[in-house]
């Protein structure tokens, strides 16, 4: 009988112990509530803890950086261009007591964050041009060799840039959250995605296509221009070479002809006598060359050749 009572007592003690002990893991922080009201300070160090059994309730809160994902929304920029903006943020519960008292649970925290973050995002986008939201710095873009010098390959200059705007957005949101006394802090907010709205996309693509076609046309006309320049060179050089050769040849021939004439003159023209003799010789030669079988000739016996036929005294 004693044994049973002892056993029963031990069991009871064990039960009491078990219901008063609880574990706080590394990633959680805990607030103890009694009859609906929080008791004591929040417990943020991990380990084995004890509470008043049955009366105290353990309310657990994640200690880690938690997600917030903004829905993709269509927002107009300063130049009235509508863009699709998708943001995300990371936040955490720094004071679980405050959190419990003001926000109670995650879903209400998320919807409060929706209000602040969506509002700040909308403000940030509406107050700036699209280029300011996409670009970060005023850097010089690297050039591709195929690009022309006067082609717009520079990026338009910006004054603030994406990072500056984002930091402003973050600072404003942080301030708003801190002033609410919700026991949470915002770690970071980022533009995850920014895109054109569907109908704007089409006109952007059309612009890109037109730009590419312009470049393609330029290449083709450059090719044609260069080709005709080369052909023109070819023609010109050809003419040059041919005319130069002709000139030189003519000069050589002319010089040679002149020289030949001089040689002849020197030989034939040295005196009246030589001129006459030359004429005589040449005439004799031409007799040889100009007669043939079909030539008719009427000769007189008075000629030097035939006179001996009728003369007797010589």
């Amino acid at each position: 009988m004693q044994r049973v009572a002892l056993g029963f007592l031990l069991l009871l003690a064990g039960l009491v112990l078990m219901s008063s002990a609880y574990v706080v893991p590394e990633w959680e922080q805990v607030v103890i509530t009694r009859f609906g009201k929080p008791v004591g300070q929040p417990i943020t160090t991990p380990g084995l803890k004890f509470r008043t059994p049955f009366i105290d309730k353990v309310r657990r809160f994640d200690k880690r950086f938690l997600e917030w994902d903004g829905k993709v929304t269509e927002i107009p920029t300063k130049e009235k261009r509508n863009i699709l903006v998708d943001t995300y943020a990371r936040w955490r519960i720094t004071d679980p007591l405050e959190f419990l008292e003001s926000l109670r649970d995650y879903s209400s925290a998320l919807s409060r964050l929706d209000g602040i973050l969506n509002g700040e995002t909308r403000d940030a986008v509406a107050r700036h041009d699209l280029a300011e939201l996409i670009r970060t710095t005023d850097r010089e873009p690297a050039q591709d060799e195929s690009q022309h010098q006067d082609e717009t390959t520079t990026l338009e200059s910006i004054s603030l840039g994406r990072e500056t705007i984002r930091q402003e957005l973050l600072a404003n949101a942080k301030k708003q959250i801190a002033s609410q006394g919700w026991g949470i802090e915002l770690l970071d907010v980022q533009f995850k995605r920014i895109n054109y709205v569907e109908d704007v996309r089409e006109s952007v693509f059309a612009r890109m296509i037109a730009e590419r076609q312009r470049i393609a046309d330029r290449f083709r006309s450059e090719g044609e221009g260069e080709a005709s320049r080369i052909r023109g060179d070819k023609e010109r050089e050809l003419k040059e070479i041919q005319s130069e050769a002709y000139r030189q040849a003519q000069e050589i021939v002319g010089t040679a002809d002149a020289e030949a004439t001089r040689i002849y003159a020197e030989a034939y023209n040295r005196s009246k006598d030589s001129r006459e003799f030359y004429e005589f010789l040449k005439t004799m030669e031409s007799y040889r060359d100009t007669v043939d079988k079909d030539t008719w000739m009427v000769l007189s016996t008075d000629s030097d050749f035939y006179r001996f036929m009728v003369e007797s005294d010589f």
Partner: protein
Amino acid sequence: MSQQDPFGNQVNIPRLEPPSVSPNVILYVVALIAVLALLGTSIYQVEPDEVGVVLRFGAYVTSTPPGLHAKLPFGIDQVETIEVRRQKTAEFGFRSQQTGQFASRAFADESNMLTGDLNAAVVEWVVQYRIEDPVSFLFKVRNGTDTFRDMSEAVMREVVGDRTVNEVLTVGRQEVAAVVKVQLQRLSDLYEIGIRVDQVVLQDVTPPPSVKPAFNEVNEAEQVKSRLISEAQAEYNQVIPKSRGQAQQTILAAEGYATDRINRAKGEAARFTSVYDQYRQAPEVTRKRIYLETMREVLPEIGRKVVVDDDIRGLLPLLDLGGNRAPGGQ
């Protein structure tokens, strides 16, 4: 005890009793179960590329290397093993294994982005990373892997948004990957996510599908330009050297003519001079001789000869050119 069966016969039914077990055996069995439970919950294994994170009553105590280890039993110590040495890959804009048509829409959302010149590009990339600090990864950030993906997308878009579409498609690819790696690491450190970014690699980077043909057209036009130029060059190279050769030929021919002409002139002049010198020594005789020699050669060649005497009158100067021999004189 004896009883009666339905037929009224006496039956002896043996008394059924639970087997008698001594209290000691029960104790031993319970002890055995306890020992087994102890062993089962106090040993764990850490794989070669893992680290064991040990929590005692939820609080972090130590990290254990690969191998077999002991821990406090009965759930006092909980161990989470996490891969740290193995490099993980996060893919964006595509997945290595095709998961189906509906999934490719989600990938397009990951890869469509705006460039600095407000054009659009489709960027696929991978991030290779390792969990360097498992304690941070597990306990500082909830859903570390998803968070890392969000961070990667944001950083890539920031970097691409600062560059022209040309840079992203061609010359700037390496630079973009390098800058993304640095900025992503910086953000990881800010979030205390415990990740080491090893490498960022751009995969397929293309213009949006509907614009792609126009981009290809540019490449083709570049090739057309090359082709037109080299065709013209080829023509030039064919024609000019040939014409130079012909020019040479023309000049050489002229030179040949010149030489020929002068030599001929010299020769003829020399011949004339020697004949003339001879002539001068005996002019009359030489003239006569040359004349007669010429006539000797020439007259036989003449097919039709008529020799008439001036004194003969009455002969009709009729010339029959019909081919017969002329009527002779009287």
